[in-house]
């Protein structure tokens, strides 16, 4: 071991404190979803599962989940195709302007969401003359989801190298045949992980959504936000929030299995 015992103990203690900082608020939300008090009195006067039943009965929350899933599925499908194409182009070719293109791909997440949101909303309304709705929402989400798929695909392609593709071509397979039979199967798990993270990103997005969804479409984050300050809805919001915390374990666990730790780290950025 390279660090002294003291250093390691201090690092462990500080890491534990950081993890406490990370998980205490989440634990509070989960705890409050069982709080008998409507106003989340601290400490909770008692525990109940009543609110979970009430949340399941909430038509608003249920509809919002369906809308969010639809948007996330469509945005992910677009991002999957475009992100993979960009990754193949940037990882398998050297060309003029390559750095500019890679900057272009990270730009939608490097710029604040409020900028992406207002820029796209303004463009839809004034340039394209498209009413804000499902279409504008999916297009906007796909724009920033692309980078997630791209990062996963690039990480995998970098690790694979091009030898097997060259071998396939040397053996007489064409471009499509090589992609379909060699490249794609090797990328499959990375692409699945990317799609999963892209789905989660779209499902969670609120800022861009607020600007580009228009009035008629209510995704789950929008629903939560609209009910956040309504006292009589507080217990249901808390249950939905707690459910989302629990549900977030699933994509991260799956993506770890699919892509391995290093690629999941690369992809999360």
């Amino acid at each position, binding site marked *: 071991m390279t660090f002294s015992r003291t250093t*390691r103990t201090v690092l462990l203690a500080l890491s534990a404190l950081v993890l406490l900082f990370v998980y205490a608020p989440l634990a509070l939300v989960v705890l409050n979803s069982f709080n008998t008090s409507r106003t989340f009195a601290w400490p909770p006067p008692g525990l109940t599962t009543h609110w979970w039943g009430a949340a399941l009965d909430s038509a608003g929350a249920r509809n919002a989940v369906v809308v969010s899933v639809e948007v996330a599925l469509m945005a992910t499908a677009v991002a999957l195709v475009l992100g993979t194409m960009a990754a193949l182009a940037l990882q398998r070719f050297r060309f003029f302007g390559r750095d500019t293109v890679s*900057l272009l791909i990270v730009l939608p997440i490097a710029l604040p969401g409020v900028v992406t949101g207002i*820029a796209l909303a*303004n463009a839809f309304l004034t340039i394209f003359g498209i009413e804000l709705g499902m279409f504008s929402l999916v297009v906007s989400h796909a724009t920033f989801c692309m980078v997630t798929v791209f990062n996963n695909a690039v990480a995998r392609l970098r690790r694979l190298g091009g030898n097997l593709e060259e071998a396939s071509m040397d053996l007489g397979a064409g471009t499509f045949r090589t992609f379909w039979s060699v490249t794609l199967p090797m990328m499959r798990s990375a692409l699945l992980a990317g799609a999963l993270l892209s789905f989660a990103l779209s499902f969670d997005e609120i800022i861009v959504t607020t600007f580009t969804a228009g009035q008629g479409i209510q995704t789950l984050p929008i629903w939560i936000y609209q009910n956040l300050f309504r006292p009589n809805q507080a217990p249901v919001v808390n249950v939905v929030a707690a459910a989302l*915390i629990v549900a977030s374990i699933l994509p991260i666990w799956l993506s770890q299995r699919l892509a391995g730790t290093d690629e999941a780290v690369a992809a999360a950025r």
Partner: protein
Amino acid sequence: MVGQPAPGGGGAASAGVLHRRPRLRLGLLLGPPVLWLGVLYLGSLAALFITSLWTVDAFGGNIQRIWNLDNYRDLATLDVYRTITLRTLATAAAVTVIDALLAFPIALYMAKVASPRAQRLLVVAVLMPLWASYLVKAYAWRGMLATGGPLDSVGLSPGYGLAATVLTLSYLWLPYMILPMYAGLERLPGSLLEASADLGASTATTMRRVVLPVLFPAVVAGSIFTFSLTLGDYIAVKIVGGANQMLGNVVYDSFLTGNNTPFAAAVATIPVAVMLVYLAAVRRTGALDSL
């Protein structure tokens, strides 16, 4: 490499054409994503900038397509917008520093002290909240900071306000700082740390001379997110920020409530300008390659 003509050729005719022409293959691969981002996204940004040079009529309803710098003049001269801009920049800087300080010990522990098994678990532990909903996390802090809530009951809650905003945003973006730091430190060979110790360097010297230089590009990479995400945030401010406003709130209010898209567009150019200057400034550090 892949583009070399293969002996024997083969495949369908169309694939053969693609096979012999790597530039065409590149063009077909690159075309759709570059059109999407270059035309739709950059085009939207350009249109936003153009809109910021227009104004709305006196009734606040219709956009008047007359070129002027009125919106920018208001931003530069009115005290309220100067204050909000400075507050937003200061918040972004504070969040970045706090996150770098919080991320350092856990990233170092994960990368260089933990056993491989503990390392995997810690990565999951750090990644998990990243995919827990943004709103839920901001909302969680509303509960933490509430009067009579867990922090208040031990006398530690700053209440809702600017301090709460900085705290909540630091919390929200922390994984974006831990992960690049961890990735950077993981690439640092353990033998380098051993060599430093063997040559008689104290822990502090090793940290300063070996660990920090590796950490710097990682912190810069992380700061791109902490900075950018803070510059554009308006929701955490609404949930825990009390009466304080940030640039995002002004954009939101002008666009959706105030019906003044040109002014909202002008305000939105501030974070864009800040981020473009920032990205250009950090380009040399190599941080962009690890985004």
